[in-house]
């Protein structure tokens, strides 16, 4: 159902543009040209981010952090199996998806853990990635309150997700 939405909207855009006598091909090409330069500006900060993330994963740092934090999470009533997800999601969308997939195959997607992991991944945002990429591509060095505030918001989203998820799980 929702698969049809985007193509239909695009067709509507094309028809609207033709009606307004816009040179569609030229518009697209100019836009794509900008897209290319955008991509080149994104590559260096992305390299910095992925370098750090790959290192964290390969060095076993993630497992170490989870091991450190599980007693605390037990105290808060948080399933420690969700910890890697909570820690990874703000850092990397693909790492978090991989962690969720692991939980799905290990415990089943309809188990409480599986359900909550799906909610967590969907409600949180890859904050460190977006902060690095958005500011990095525009050459901003002083990011002020953006990073901590965005992190706070996404953690809030995660907490709210756990709350509503636990409430609504059957």
């Amino acid at each position, binding site marked *: 159902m929702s698969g049809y939405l985007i193509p239909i909207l695009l067709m509507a855009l094309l028809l609207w543009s033709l009606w307004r006598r816009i040179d569609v091909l030229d518009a697209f090409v100019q836009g794509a040209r900008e897209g290319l330069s955008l991509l080149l500006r994104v590559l260096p900060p992305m390299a910095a981010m992925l370098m750090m993330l790959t290192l964290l994963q390969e060095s076993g740092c993630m497992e170490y952090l989870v091991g450190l934090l599980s007693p605390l999470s037990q105290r808060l009533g948080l399933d420690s199996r969700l910890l890697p997800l909570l820690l990874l999601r703000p850092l990397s969308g693909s790492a978090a998806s991989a962690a969720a997939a692991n939980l799905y195959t290990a415990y089943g997607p309809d188990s409480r853990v599986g359900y909550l992991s799906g909610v967590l991944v969907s409600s949180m945002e890859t904050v460190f990635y977006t902060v690095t990429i958005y500011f990095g591509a525009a050459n901003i060095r002083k990011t002020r309150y953006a990073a901590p505030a965005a992190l706070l918001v996404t953690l809030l*989203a995660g907490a709210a*997700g756990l709350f509503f998820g636990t409430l609504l799980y059957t």
Partner: protein
Amino acid sequence: MNVLYAGLLLLGMSLSLIRLGGEGTLSTLLLGGQSAVDLCLKMAGGYLFWMGVLELTRRSGAARALGRLLSPLVRLCCPTAGDAAEPISLSLSANMLGLSGAATPFALDAMARLERNNPHPGTATHDMCALLILNAGCLKLLPTAQIAMRQACGSLSPGAILVPSLLATGVSCLCAIALAWALRRS
């Protein structure tokens, strides 16, 4: 942010030296750079496509019409955005619809425009911070990625995560608006 980045890097390198040794550490670091190139190549098609679409929406006036939907929000949180207001509202709309592939190039375009009007180049403006905060807490109407993954893993009701995710991002969206507004005042 810089402290966090450098700190995590040092932590990762220390542990990596123990577990993988010197060469292992270096090759892991270089692997990160390579995966960035691979990722950018994979995203290139999407970027070219969506930026082409964006230019078309701009020239045809459709961007202005779409932007009007979210403009009260953008005006509240990014009052000095100027010509960046359009890509900001487009980016947030794309984010709401789960189109992260489109949300990023729109946001990058917004950041470039905001930087052009920046009285202190190289330092984040309130509008830039607001964009990031709103993006972090953005309402997610269609969590398609996780629904698809759940279905692939054999879930009996893959769409069951929609309601809690919607409620959670609704809460975070309101908090994001409030936080962005409050931090601008301080």
